[in-house]
């Protein structure tokens, strides 16, 4: 089985993110890091490989991003991926969810994976479920919010968090699975692995190499457009009650709750 893990380089959580008012895009200067949710996906891939329930020939880290994204790939490889693929092309800049999902699906197609794993969300786009977009393009079954994966007989038995509780779903391969952070504790890379990461094969691909129609990606190919940025609505200053007569205070609280239909 070949597992492809989709990873993304995102601004570090500690960096104060801002949108560049000129391009209406995220200012990607400043520290970048491998998207924390993707480390869970890599760990899941490694656990499947090490678990032995199904033979895994290779785990491939795949990313779409500018040249700096190779760092995310190095990190992914240090965490256990056998090699990596970097889809990088100026034409992709400014892609929205629709365009990004399309581009990722195309590069994954070129790898013919049996299983695609990715993190539930990324720290920057706050979009969630790019996996579901990719899965439809790849014509594969998909599941998100997965917090447990068991492999047997070429099928996956997954648990995922849903509105009404936990669902158990059996899913056939090939499939696209987005994992939540509750699924595992990612391992730390050993120093040896970190130092050896740069030596593992890294393929760079441009849009033409994987059959991406440039008209469907980038700012021009996106189907949504950010029109304006505004500060969030100002919150009205709250009310303060000083408790003197507790019975009275409690009455006021209950009235407040009632007013807002909270009880």
């Amino acid at each position, binding site marked *: 089985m070949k597992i492809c893990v989709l990873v993304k380089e995102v601004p570090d959580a500690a960096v104060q993110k801002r949108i560049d008012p000129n391009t209406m895009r995220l200012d990607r200067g400043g520290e970048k890091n491998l998207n924390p949710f993707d480390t869970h996906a890599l760990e899941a891939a490694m656990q499947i490989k090490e678990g032995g329930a199904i033979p895994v020939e290779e785990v491939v880290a795949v990313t779409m991003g500018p040249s700096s994204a190779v760092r995310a790939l190095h990190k992914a490889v240090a965490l256990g991926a056998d090699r990596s693929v970097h889809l990088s092309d100026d034409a992709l800049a400014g892609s929205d969810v629709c365009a990004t999902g399309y581009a990722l699906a195309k590069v994954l197609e070129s790898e013919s994976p049996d299983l695609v794993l990715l993190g539930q969300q990324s720290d920057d786009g706050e979009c969630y479920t790019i996996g579901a977009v990719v899965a439809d393009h790849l014509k594969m079954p998909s599941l998100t919010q997965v917090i447990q994966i068991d492999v047997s007989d070429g099928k996956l038995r997954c648990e995922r968090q849903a509105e009404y509780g936990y669902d158990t*779903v059996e*899913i056939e391969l090939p499939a696209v699975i987005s994992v939540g952070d509750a699924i595992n504790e990612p391992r730390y890379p050993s120093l040896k692995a970190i130092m050896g990461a740069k030596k593992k094969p890294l393929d760079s691909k441009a849009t033409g190499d994987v059959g991406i129609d440039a008209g469907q990606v980038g700012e021009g190919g996106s189907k*949504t457009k950010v029109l304006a940025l505004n500060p969030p609505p100002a919150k009205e200053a709250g009310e303060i009650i000083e408790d003197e007569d507790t019975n009275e205070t409690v009455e006021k609280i209950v009235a407040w709750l009632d007013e807002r239909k909270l009880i």
Partner: protein
Amino acid sequence: MAGILVYALHDDEGNFNKNSLGAISEAAKLAGEVGGEAAALVVGEVADDACASLGNYGAAKVYRAKSVPEGLAQPIIDAMAKVIQEQGFSYALFGGGLLGFEIGAGLTARLGAGVTMEVTAVKVDGGKLIVERPILQDSEVADVGYVSEPGIIIGRLNAFDAKESGGTAEVVDVDVELSEWSSKAKLVQRGEQRGADVNIEDADILVGGGRGLGAKEGFELCEQLADSMGGAVAATRAVVDAGWYPYAAQIGQTGKTVAPKLYLAAGVSGAIQHKVGMQNSENILAINKDPNAPIFEFSDLGVVGDLHKIVPKLTEAIKAKKG
């Protein structure tokens, strides 16, 4: 192209999800302004009158795909794609939640459509819909427009309020041919509750306990209060650190992020490390004996007083009110 199609999620008993109802009401309002009608899509064997009742929230028509199973997204993607394409809807609207995200995302690929997630408001401009969505941990709000149709709008939980308007909807059955891969996932068990690890991220009401509780036993007060309101209990890093409550309940920078309808903070100072995990709660009620506690700067109702006196009485009063 015109009109807005809303996905109406329901449970196994046929009760519709309140966020779906809210989305239908919102669609009805917007359809009035951009033209076309608001309609809902329901999957599974849902009774006629249940479907028709969606008209009470503003749906003019309800498309029912009886043979499509509920609970997994991909068959519903097939159903919605078919109805959107055949009926020429301009927008698809979801009330938020897991399936809404998955279906909306799948439709993005299927229809080559633009999609916006976590939408908090929708407005009309020149006969088109523009959505507002918070970004960068809610520090800014982006206005997003759609370049083509249909456009897919996935709301943030609780963004849309359900409004009853009287009326019934016409129920239309549709046949949906499932994509080959839509039957590759099988729902073995749906909606299993796991009481012990109540997922605080899903709770509508949370009672958060902090250092002000004084001791581990203080959490009993929180639990009783939460029970009285049908909510769950959360905790700050400091008390989890001290072993007063489990890590699964921790909210904040290094814990979980929540946005319930009500966050009642008892003995919580409101330090930023905690604030970032709950600041998007719809209503924040804080009880703290320190009038200078930072939480009073962003609470909707702040009560300066002894929580050990107030909380038990509050619990009693709520129980009494609920009868």
